[in-house]
């Protein structure tokens, strides 16, 4: 007997008892629905967090002077500089998993154009910084290494600053702005970045070469120390954690920190912070996963139960089929395919319902609606597996009936 005929018989048997089939597969429907919704929620939330962190820079490590926690309070980072320019050079040259490193010196100040003024954050840095943070220009260009060496008076403006000083559609390239009464030439405008994960406006900032910053903005200070932080871009996402360990070791050696004594700097790994953000969705995911597991188990037992009923109900039919020539395998296949049909139909309904729920949730929380075809295939495959596992016993029972007794069954 061919497979097509077997499937036709099975589908018919399932359709013949519509309500019964539906109730039987409810467990599978809920189980698969939960899996689909769960994955969609997880993926959606993950994508959102990832998007927010990606705007901060890829494979990013931030090194700050001072111990990470002092007495539970964030005890004045940067107030006591411990990182030196030589440290930065060492990080750039001696740590293989570091792709780029740049200092970030920052203060707040007023920027004045011909017609208006705006108080914003002023950053001194090097060209690598923009690469580390994935920041691009919408107009003009980034200042160069030569600008850094020469300490030229050039600035790059964030879009918010442009909006405030010149208006949204203006092109300020070549214009002059004054900071601390010193004229700077605008050479670039940053492409709009939006908000950081904690809500600060990335575009409300101006940037200049770190040498210019130190000479004109910061005033005199400790020449050897970096009055700010170091931003590090690791060579790959996998290298980020390795880079963190290597940099810590390097800095401890350079600062001659004794074993057992706390670091005099702290390193933040943004990849880790991103995963911490995802912890929140884990509870929901775990909950849905347990619903899915229990439902699939219950669904499987339901299928087994209804298949046993079906075998008993159709004992005479089985006897007759055997009398006209059905082999053990024919009968086994018939009932196994019937169980499989039930569970796969349940699985498909579950996928539909899961997608619907995921869609509603995505709309509600403003997540992207992410459908993973592999998960759909896996869940339908898993329902099929449930059908086979729980359908096997009833099908075997049917196939081993004695034809004479089956024909006589009342």
């Amino acid at each position, binding site marked *: *007997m*061919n497979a097509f*005929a077997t499937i036709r018989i099975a589908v018919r048997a399932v359709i*013949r008892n519509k309500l019964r089939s539906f109730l039987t597969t409810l467990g599978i429907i809920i189980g698969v629905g939960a899996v689909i919704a769960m994955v969609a929620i997880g993926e959606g939330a993950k994508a959102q967090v990832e998007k927010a962190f990606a705007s901060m820079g890829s494979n990013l490590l931030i090194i700050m002077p001072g111990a990470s926690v002092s007495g539970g309070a964030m005890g004045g980072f940067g107030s006591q500089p411990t990182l030196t320019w030589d440290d930065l050079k060492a990080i750039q040259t001696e740590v293989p998993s570091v792709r780029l490193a740049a200092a970030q010196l920052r203060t707040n100040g007023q920027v004045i154009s011909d017609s208006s003024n705006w108080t914003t954050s002023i950053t001194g840095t090097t060209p690598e910084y923009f690469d580390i943070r994935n920041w691009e220009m919408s107009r003009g260009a980034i200042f160069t290494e030569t600008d850094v060496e020469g300490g030229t008076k050039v600035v790059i403006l964030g879009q918010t600053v442009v909006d405030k000083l010149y208006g949204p559609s203006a092109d300020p390239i070549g214009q002059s702005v004054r900071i601390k009464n010193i004229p700077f030439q605008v050479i670039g405008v940053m492409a709009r970045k939006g908000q950081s994960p904690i809500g600060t406006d990335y575009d409300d900032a101006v940037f200049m070469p770190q040498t210019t910053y130190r000479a004109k903005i910061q005033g005199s200070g400790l020449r050897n120390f970096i009055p700010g932080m170091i931003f590090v871009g690791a060579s790959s996402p996998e290298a980020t954690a390795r880079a963190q360990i290597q940099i810590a070791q390097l800095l401890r050696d350079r600062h001659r920190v004794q074993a057992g004594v706390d670091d005099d700097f702290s390193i933040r790994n943004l990849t880790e912070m991103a995963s911490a953000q995802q912890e929140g969705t884990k509870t929901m995911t775990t909950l849905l996963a347990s619903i899915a597991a229990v439902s699939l188990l219950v669904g499987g037992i339901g299928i087994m139960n209804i298949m046993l009923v079906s075998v008993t109900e159709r004992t*005479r*039919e089985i*006897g*007759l*089929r*055997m*009398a*006209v*020539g*059905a*082999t*053990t*395998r*024919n009968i086994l296949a018939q009932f196994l395919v019937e169980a499989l049909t039930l569970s796969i139909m349940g699985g498909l309904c579950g996928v539909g319902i899961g997608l619907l729920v995921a869609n509603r949730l995505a709309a509600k929380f403003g997540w992207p609606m992410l459908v993973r075809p592999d998960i759909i295939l896996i869940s339908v495959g898993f329902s099929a597996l449930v059908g086979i596992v729980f359908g096997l016993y009833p099908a075997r029972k049917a196939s081993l009936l004695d*034809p*004479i007794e089956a*024909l006589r069954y009342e």
Partner: protein
Amino acid sequence: MAGAPLILLEEVTKVYAMGDVEVRALRGVSLTIETGDFVAVMGASGSGKSTLMNLLGCLDRPTSGHLLLDGRDVSKLGRDAQAQVRNRTLGFVFQSFNLLARTSAVENVELPLLYAGVPTRERHWRAVEALERVGLGSRLDHHPSQLSGGQQQRVAIARALVSRPRLILADEPTGNLDSRTSIEVMALFQELGRAGMTIVLVTHESEIAAYASRVLVMRDGRVQSDQRRDPLRAVVPPEEEAHP
């Protein structure tokens, strides 16, 4: 094949073990049935008629002795080999019709061909042909619940015929039918017999047995008598002619 009987039984016994008690349903039956025979098996209740039919039908195996079907010893076949013999060489007709409910006449008749691996289209036309042969060409799509008892039994006969078997086995095929319908069914069997089919049927009624060309009487698990005679010709009374 001339000379070789279709069925040959040699000292066949069947013993059912019911806990400590042994029920000896057949106590040594030796018998030959030739191709084209129309045999009626009679005997008191419990004499072993159904047991004999189950053995002939390869639904069971003898406890001892040999059973040759078409020259082949089938007394020790495994389950699936038995199923194959049933599918290829035998056709069954039951007292209670045993049609699949909510399934059309054609599909009921197609069933043996399904397990023989006959392709869909051939299955269909052969089933239609078999139904036409039993006079139900106009009832192809009727479900069993839409057919009379006699019509249902004719669908069952069409199902037994469709695989062109060597032998048709019928255990009390008229047991659930009134006398007029019984004659209709017997007329059909006689027609098949004239076409060269071998038929073995069990009956309690001597009026029915009269249509067969050979009558076998069983008693206590043995063949008591075995007689050939001229069969009565089954003629359906012409009045109140009501069929298709």
